[in-house]
């Protein structure tokens, strides 16, 4: 896989960040003047050490996080001109820890799409390699890997264009990790844009078509990014 920093034309970009700054409620800068573009299609990895601002950048994309300064565009349109709830149905998200809601797997899928039929729910489960018998299982009793796949199915239920995946393999076992990686590749092959946050450089190399390196809340320049990706970072 190509592990170079993303360098795409702004008009072809999925997300364009212009001088984006995020200051937390504790006064700490999480992002410092980020200028970057995330391309449409494929898997884009956001990598960097802990606390480098990867998750913050990701959470800006569906407006779970607000920017303090700068501008973000989604397919060329300012992010704030979208209704946040509509935006989140186009730009879905799976979190670091599985977030099953109380109830059955079916109940969970119905939270995302209230008019979902059993056939539709079964099809969603098939997409994440879970069989239909899971529909009646208690979602909070699933294993970590199963729960994470159910969360992915739940996010797919809103029929998004983009899937934000925030360190989704960090709390699951080795096998589940492989399954989630192959699911991300399959979704990307089917035309969905995937933005994948990880601190695992091997995983980024396996998975990503494009890679953006963040260090200390800034997008690393080419030399710093190359050094970091080669493991020679001074971090």
């Amino acid at each position, binding site marked *: 896989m190509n592990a170079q920093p993303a360098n795409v034309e702004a008009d072809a970009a999925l997300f364009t960040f212009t001088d984006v700054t995020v200051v937390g409620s504790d006064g700490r800068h999480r992002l410092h003047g980020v200028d970057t573009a995330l391309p449409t299609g494929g898997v884009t990895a956001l990598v960097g050490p802990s606390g480098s601002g990867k998750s913050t950048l990701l959470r800006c994309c569906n*407006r*779970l996080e*607000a920017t303090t300064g700068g501008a973000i565009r989604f397919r060329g349109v300012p992010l704030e001109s979208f209704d946040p*709830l509509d935006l989140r149905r186009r730009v879905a*998200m799976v*979190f670091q820890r599985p*977030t099953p809601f109380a109830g059955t797997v079916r109940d969970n899928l119905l*939270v*995302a799409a209230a008019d979902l039929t059993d056939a539709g729910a079964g099809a969603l489960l098939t997409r994440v390699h879970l069989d239909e018998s899971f529909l009646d299982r208690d979602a909070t009793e699933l294993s970590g890997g199963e729960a994470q796949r159910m969360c992915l199915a739940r*996010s797919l239920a809103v029929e998004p264009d983009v899937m934000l995946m925030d360190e989704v393999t960090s709390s699951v076992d080795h096998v589940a990790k492989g399954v989630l990686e192959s699911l991300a590749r399959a979704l990307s092959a089917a035309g969905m844009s995937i933005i994948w946050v990880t601190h695992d450089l091997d995983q980024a190399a396996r998975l990503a078509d494009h890679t953006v390196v963040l260090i200390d809340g800034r997008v690393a320049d080419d030399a710093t990014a190359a050094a970091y990706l080669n493991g020679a970072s001074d971090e």
Partner: protein
Amino acid sequence: MSDDITWVGLASSLVLVALAVALSRWRKLSLEAGIVWASLRALAQLLLVGVALEFVLPRNLAWSWAWVAIMVVFAAETVRRRAGEVPGVFGLALGAFALASAVTLGVLFGFGIFPLEPATLVTLAGLTAGNCMTATVVVGRRVLDGLRDRRDEVEARLALGLSSSEAAGPTVRDALRTALVPQIERTKTVGVVFLPGTMTGLILGGASPLGAVRIQLAVMYLILGSAATTTAVVALGVRRRVFTADHRLVLPHAATR
């Protein structure tokens, strides 16, 4: 009503306080000062209230309303002291108590269940605020702690395109249940497990037991109604405080209590 308890009688009941002090000293609980202070404070406060109810208020309904307003403010301030980590809790509690008082007093006086007199006004308003403080504190804290503990789940709901009220719904419902269940349980077991204060007071004061029961029931329904009102106002108010207009969850930092 029959004769009041005499001053001598009241003084005699201090024997029971002395017993508590003796027990504390015997078991080395170091609670003697606390017991004496609590007893004296209760004496002073209630005497003051009694004097006011007996001599000042009967002549003036306006003063009684002022007293009600002060009680509502004082109750809201008590909630703020006990749940200071909840953002904007004073204003919310003030609004909640004011609304609950308006609703419950409106029903009780509007339907002529009680006559609108200074003494009944102050007493019923006091019952409303006094009995709802704990439920108000519980619900405010529970909503905030619940959203903090279940932050991932709440954000997962937001990320599915749910509004902040839908995303916080399960947490708010749990908090309301937790705050209201004790009051519902008390209402269910009344008369079986314990005899409530209003009724015992009336019976000791010489009222007929059935008359006392009628008043007690009206009071319990008053408390139930006002607890439901205050907790709903506070729960929804806290929820509005911790979400932005664009449906983001912004929790205050964990407070140092």
